[in-house]
C-alpha cells in the first residue's frame, strides 16, 4: 500500500500540467467541448465505439483518449458498453462485409437522436483497404454518417477536435 501511495504522490497529476503544446491545445479544445456537451447532452456525451473492420491502430488511439494525459471523461465524454446507452457511435475501419450486419444492428439499437462519427481514413473513405469483395469501404456506405475524423490513425487531439466539430455542426 505504501509503495502505491508513494508512487502516486511522486507521479503527481500529469493531466493538469500540460508538458507540451499538444496538451495545451488539447485542454483548450476539451474545455470548449465540455461547454457544448453541457448544453446539448446535459453534461455527458456517451459514446459507443464500434470497430467495423479496422487494423486496430485506430482503437489504440481512441483508448489513449482515456489515459491520464488526456482523460476525456473530465470534458464529459465517456465510453459506454452498450449502444442502447449511447448518444453517438464512433465507428472505425472500412466496414468489412462480415461486420456489415452487426454494424447495422448496433446502429438500430442506438436510440435517436444519435450521431455517427467515422474515425480514421478507413472509416471516412475506405482508406488503405477501400471497397472489395471483403469490404464495403467507408462507413457511410452502410449507415448514415454525421461527421468524419480523418487520420491513419487520428491522434487523440484530432479525435477530440473531431468530436468538437460534430457538436458545433
Amino acid at each position: 500500500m505504501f509503495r502505491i501511495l508513494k508512487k502516486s504522490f511522486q507521479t503527481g497529476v500529469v493531466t493538469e500540467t500540460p508538458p507540451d503544446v499538444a496538451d495545451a491545445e488539447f485542454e483548450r479544445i476539451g474545455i470548449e467541448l465540455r461547454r457544448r456537451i453541457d448544453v446539448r447532452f446535459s453534461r455527458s456525451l456517451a459514446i459507443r465505439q464500434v470497430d467495423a473492420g479496422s487494423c486496430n491502430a485506430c482503437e489504440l488511439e481512441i483508448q489513449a483518449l482515456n489515459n491520464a494525459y488526456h482523460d476525456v471523461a473530465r470534458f464529459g465524454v465517456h465510453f459506454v458498453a452498450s449502444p442502447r446507452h449511447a448518444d453517438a457511435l464512433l465507428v472505425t475501419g472500412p466496414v468489412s462485409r462480415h461486420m456489415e450486419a452487426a454494424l447495422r444492428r448496433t446502429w438500430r439499437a442506438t436510440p435517436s437522436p444519435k450521431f455517427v462519427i467515422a474515425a480514421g481514413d478507413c472509416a471516412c473513405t475506405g482508406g488503405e483497404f477501400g471497397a472489395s469483395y471483403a469490404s464495403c469501404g467507408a462507413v457511410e456506405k452502410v449507415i448514415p454518417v454525421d461527421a468524419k475524423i480523418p487520420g491513419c490513425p487520428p491522434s487523440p487531439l484530432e479525435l477530440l477536435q473531431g468530436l468538437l466539430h460534430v457538436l458545433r455542426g
Partner: protein
Amino acid sequence: MTHSDQISDSDQMPRSAWLCEYLARLEDEQVMAQHGDARILAPAHRLELDPEGWATAAKVAAAMGLRHAGLWADCLDDSALAAEDRAIRMQACLEHAGDYLVLETQVPMLRPVLASQASIYPGVDRLERHAHDLTGLELTSQPDGRRWTRHQAWPEDRFPLRGDFPLAGEPVGRAPADADYPFGRVQGTGVYEIPVGPVHAGIIEPGHFRFHAMGEDVLQLEERLGYVHKGIEKLAVGRDPAGLARLAGRVSGDSTVAHAWAACQAMERATDCIVPARAQALRGLMAERERVANHLGDIGAVCNDVGFAFAHLQCGRLRERWQRRSQALFGHRLMMDAVIPGGVAVDLCDKVVEELREDHAQLKSEIVPIFDVVADHPSLDDRLMTTGVLSEADARQLGCTGYVGKASGLAFDVRRDSPYAPYDGLAMDGAILAEGDVAARVRVRMAEIGNALRWMDRLLKSLPDGPICAQLPEAEAGAMGLGIIEGWRGEILSFIRFGPDGRIARYFPRDPSWFTWPALERLIHGNIVPDFPVCNKSVNGSYSGQDL
C-alpha cells in the same frame, strides 16, 4: 534455375544435423523429396514433396519434435496458363533449434486435393481452413472441416484468391450475418451458453466467443473469428513493393513496425537487396519501441481487468509519453510507414540519440517501483496466479511463440535463435517462466521491457553511420522470399512471391495470433467466466492480424 538433385546428394548445402535426420526419415517412409532450388527461401531450406507425402512429412516432423510455423496456399492460375497447367501450391514452414524448413507441394487446379496436416499439428487447423476458404484447396481428413474465414460475403464455391475472382467481388447484395455457423455443443443438466460479440463491450476489435458454462465454470469456449476479414491477401496482388509495405503495416496496427519489417525483409531477400547497417539498426530500435509500448499498455490493461487501476493509470501514462517520443522521432505515434523496402524512411540525428538514452534511463527508473508492485501485491497475486494456465505441452502442440510460449516454458525467440540484423551482432536476452498462468505472461512482458531497454542502449552506443535506405532491385518474376521477425507478440512470418513487372503476386503474413487464439480456448478451461477478460487480455491475440 530449377535443377533437381535427389535427396541423397547433400552437396553444397550446409545443413543442420536435424535436417539430415529428417531427410533420412522421409526416405525411410518413401516420401519423394526434391531439393530443387533449396535456397530460394533462405534462410529457410526448401524441400519439394510429392503431394502423396504431405501428411507423412508432417508426421515425421512431429515425431522429431519440430514446431509447425504455419502453412499457406498459393494459386498458380495465371490466365496465360492452360487449364491443366494451373495449380495450387502449398507451403508449410517448420522450425527446430532456430533452423527453418519450408515444405512445398503442388496439386492441379482441376483437382485441388491434399491431405491435411492438422490432425498431427492442431495449431494449423484454422490456417488450413483459411487456405480452403480463399483458394478452394480441399483438405482430406481435415479434423474440423467447417468454414473459417468465410462468413456470408461470398458463396461457398467461389474462392477470392483465384485469378478469376475479381477484387471487387461478385454482386451478392448485403452480406447477411453468419447466423447458422455450426458451433460445437455441450449438453447436460445446468449447462448454458453465453454468446458474446462480435461487437464487444470495450474499445476493442470484434469477434465472437461462444461459452458453455455450468455455474461459473467455463466448460468450453469456442471462438468464431473472421469478422474483420478485409481481403488483405487479395489487395496485395499487383501492388508495388512500397504499396505492399504500407499494406503490411496495417495487417495489425499494433504491430505495424514488425509486420512492415517482415514484409520488407521478404521482398529484400527475394531481390538480394543489401539493406544498409544503419537502416537495420533503426528498424531494430523501432521494433523494440513497439514492443515496449504494447507491453506497457497490456500490463496496465491486465491489471485493470482485475480492478487494479493504479497500474493501469501508471502504465498508460508511461505508454503515452513513449508514443509522443515516437511521434517526435519518427513522425508517427505508432511509427507507421517508417519501415520501407530497402530501409527506413526517417533518420535520427546525434542529438536525439542522447535524448533517447535519457528517456530509457527515465523509463527504467519509473518502471521499477511500478513493476515491483505488480509483481508482488496480494490482491493481484490472488487474481492472476494460477489463472488461465497454459501447459507447456499445449503451448508446444499449438506452436505458441512470444510471451505466451515463454510464460509456458518455451524459450524460442527469433531474435535469439535465428538472429537477423541487427540482433545477429547484438544479442537480446531471453525471458522464460514455467507457470503458464496470467501472472507469468505479465512477468515475461515486464522482463522483456527491461531487456529491450538495455538492448536499445547498447544499440545506440554503436549506431552505425551511413545511408538509411537502399534501392530495392526489381524482382524477377517468380522470385520468392520469406521474412521472419520477432514482433512483440512473437514470431511473424511473411511470404512473398513476385509476379511480372516487379509486382506482388502473393503475400501471406502469418501473425503469431493464429496459434495463440486456439491457446486461449485451452487455457480458459476450468476458469470462471468472470476471469475470461483478464485471460484474454493476457494473451491479447490480434483479430485483424488473424482475419486478414
